[in-house]
């Protein structure tokens, strides 16, 4: 590990932005799928764009829009259910943010919370991996975040505009994108015996959680299991 002198520069943003181009296409197509769905429940272009910009979560938005029904804006209990769904689907971001504290905590408030406002899965995974490889520039997080956020907005726009370009994203395997990236990056992050213990505990908890109550909590519980394992197994001398 090199020195932990954190900076936040445009050069760092650029590095993150370029490195994150890998998942830009996937995010664009996911945005496209949301845009099409938004059109199906009669959201206007502006409403769909606002939702993508403010919520910025594919799974949460699709779940929310699905409960909108044909052109009906829900009220009362239905809104509460939507908010609860978003909270559950995005609970993993609490963990992501906590993990970024040692790094982003050294940037200014605006830089840190601005980066967090558009945090995405691929964005976070890539940043944590880069940090592990010695990246100290916190601009990397915002740069790779923008590389996901911009195609997301672009995809939404194209989706609500075009009616049925991509009616079934599952047919093109787009729903598999996050799983595919996780598997690929997981393979490249596996090193040493310590990681094997993290893998086993996370896999066991993920499997058990998926069996007992399938849903978004699986990811959070697996993440916590890995963190607890690393915490318990920590040896001061074992830093590489």
């Amino acid at each position, binding site marked *: 590990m090199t020195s932990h002198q954190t900076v936040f520069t445009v050069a760092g943003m650029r590095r993150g932005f370029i490195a994150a181009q890998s998942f830009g296409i996937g995010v664009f197509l996911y945005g496209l799928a949301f845009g099409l769905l938004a059109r199906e429940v009669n959201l206007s272009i502006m409403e769909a764009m606002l939702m993508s910009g403010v919520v910025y979560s594919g799974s949460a938005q699709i779940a929310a829009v699905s409960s909108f029904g044909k052109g009906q804006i829900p009220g009362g209990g239905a809104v509460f259910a939507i908010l609860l769904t978003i909270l559950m689907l995005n609970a993993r971001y609490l963990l992501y943010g906590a993990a970024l*504290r040692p790094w982003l905590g050294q940037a200014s408030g605006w830089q840190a*919370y601005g980066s967090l406002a558009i945090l995405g899965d691929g964005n976070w995974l890539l940043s944590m991996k880069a940090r592990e490889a010695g990246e100290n520039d916190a601009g990397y997080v915002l740069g790779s975040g923008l590389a996901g956020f911009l195609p997301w907005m672009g995809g939404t726009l194209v989706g609500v505009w075009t009616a049925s370009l991509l009616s079934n994203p599952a047919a093109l395997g787009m729903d598999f994108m996050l799983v*595919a990236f996780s598997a690929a990056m997981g393979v490249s992050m596996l090193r040493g015996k310590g990681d094997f213990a993290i893998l086993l505990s996370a896999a066991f908890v993920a499997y058990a959680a998926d*069996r007992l109550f399938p849903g978004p909590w699986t990811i959070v519980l697996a993440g916590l299991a890995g963190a607890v394992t*690393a915490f318990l197994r920590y040896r001061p001398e074992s830093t590489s």
Partner: protein
Amino acid sequence: MMVRPEFLPILILMGLVSFFCRAGGFWLMRFVTVTPRLESALKATPLAVMIGIVVPVAARGSLPEIIALIAIVIVMRFANNDLMAAFTGVGVVAVARYLL
């Protein structure tokens, strides 16, 4: 460019919940001293989260997804390229779902 007035409160609430999730964990860690031991735990989360994403899909035992995951591991072993491996996986899933 129309936005229905009754859409706005829902939009704002949804945005607040989303931002709370993104910023909340980071904010809470203000009050926690990050010891080397805790930092090793935080560093373990990406790998564990990725496993949490992959394992349920693998455990469901649907053939296209399992073939694709094997293809991803093989590409990573030989080419060690995230992007190439992920897109191979997505391509394999699309073709396998069509054929099987």
